[in-house]
């Protein structure tokens, strides 16, 4: 499977004024050594001698991740090199499943970068707090005292561990004023194992945290292609840890949900689920939770936690490409009207919708031609964990 290719020979965005811009690179090569060479060659052409402070590498699980990361790290030894496996990866001009996409940030974008892998042998919160202490030591200040208009975090989480809620909650404890944006690693829909990378370290159970000291204004985008319907429910019984809802408004969840979708519980399947997730509404903005399975004991299993007592709306699909374009335009306005780069974390369910509607070209164009790096995720993060959403960091 592969995403819709862009036109062959689409030129790279030309380097401007000696590399003072973020640059992206993409390779469809299946051989990891070849892919690394292509990524580095594209970077070098655009960087024109400048050394990046941070490099992001998003790659298929079919690649030899450690070897690829090592090659990039060897070429840019002063950069923090972070990455993860994906369910598809893209830059502003091309996308793939089975390939590699990357971005390098020069010092004119990020003055400094500090990275660490949080491991969870002693629990998620302990792992995050320990990692936050390390980042604070590297940055020279406790994360709690860093200026949120200058510093930003990127997180790349394992995509199989179902720990994203705990990770985001723990980041809220460790660094309440800082925003961490990111996504959960994928493995091309195999759902076996995902990998995250930081320099020479890798993990199948943890999260990479990268702290960036930004030299330019930045903003966040969070977009989903859904609008709330009139159907509104309260979660009255749920198993939060297993992300399963048993009752809506005091009645069996599958019955209530199916009726609102205009169907019956026996007909619930991926088509209904993808078109009708539920959303927690905050100031008119939906935070999407996507159901994906009816459990044997009549529960609705979600890709995301829903807390008992929460009120959710049944959602209807809208225009994925159009809403992405609008969200990116808003973020671009926030950074002064011209964005120089973006990191995007796009849900795998949105990729499947793009596959089905052959809309990958339109999706990439929604980023407005600015150097962009993204991957299709098994979960998106922005202050918390969300589904069927694209979260992004946009910088001037």
């Amino acid at each position, binding site marked *: 499977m592969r995403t819709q290719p862009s036109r062959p020979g689409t030129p790279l965005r030309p380097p401007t004024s000696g590399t003072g811009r973020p640059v992206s690179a993409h390779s469809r090569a299946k051989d990891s050594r070849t892919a690394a060479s292509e990524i580095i060659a594209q970077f070098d052409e655009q960087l024109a001698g400048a050394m990046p402070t941070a490099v992001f590498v998003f790659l298929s699980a079919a690649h030899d991740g450690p070897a690829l990361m090592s090659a990039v790290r060897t070429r840019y030894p002063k950069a923090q090199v972070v990455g993860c496996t994906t369910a598809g990866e893209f830059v502003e001009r091309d996308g793939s499943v089975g390939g590699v996409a990357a971005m390098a940030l020069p010092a004119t974008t990020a003055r400094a970068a500090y990275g660490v892998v949080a491991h969870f042998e002693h629990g998620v919160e302990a792992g995050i707090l320990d990692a936050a202490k390390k980042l604070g030591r590297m940055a020279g200040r406790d994360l*709690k005292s860093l200026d*949120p208009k200058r510093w930003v975090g990127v997180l790349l989480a394992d995509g199989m561990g179902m720990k994203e809620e705990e990770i*985001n*909650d723990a980041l*809220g*404890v460790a660094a*309440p*004023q800082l*925003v961490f944006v990111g996504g959960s690693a994928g493995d091309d829909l195999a759902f076996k194992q995902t990998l995250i990378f930081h320099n020479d370290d890798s993990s199948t159970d943890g999260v990479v945290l990268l702290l960036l000291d930004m030299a330019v204004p930045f903003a966040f985008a969070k977009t989903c292609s859904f609008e709330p319907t009139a159907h509104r429910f309260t*979660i009255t019984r749920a198993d939060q840890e297993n992300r399963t809802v048993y009752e809506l408004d005091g009645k069996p969840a599958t019955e209530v949900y199916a009726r609102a979708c205009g169907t019956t519980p026996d007909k619930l399947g991926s088509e209904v689920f993808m078109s009708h997730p539920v959303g*927690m509404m*905050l*100031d008119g903005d939906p*935070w999407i939770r996507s159901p994906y399975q009816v459990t044997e004991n009549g529960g609705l299993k979600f890709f995301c936690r*829903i*807390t*008992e*007592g*929460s*009120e959710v709306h049944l959602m209807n699909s809208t225009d994925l490409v159009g809403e992405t374009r609008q969200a990116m335009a808003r973020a671009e306005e926030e950074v002064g009207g011209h964005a120089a780069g973006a990191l995007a974390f796009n849900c795998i369910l949105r990729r499947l919708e793009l596959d089905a509607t052959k809309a990958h070209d339109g999706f990439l164009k929604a980023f407005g031609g600015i150097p962009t790096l993204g991957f299709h995720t098994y979960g998106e993060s922005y*202050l*918390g*964990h969300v589904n069927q959403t694209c979260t992004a960091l946009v910088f001037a």
Partner: protein
Amino acid sequence: MQTLDDVQRALRARVGSDDALKLVTTRVFLRTGVNLKQVRPDQNVDAAVITKVVGALAAFGHSLT
């Protein structure tokens, strides 16, 4: 704190900027399901909900007690 409205007022007094308030109320919303900016009447005087919200705020560095 007898109501979530009390919690909301105490939080607003403690947190200076609108940006910071938005950040913490969003984190609390995603963790507890409670929207402190638009408190639901059925949650406003629910002692268990108030305890949950105050606990979440304390974890995020805003101890109101």
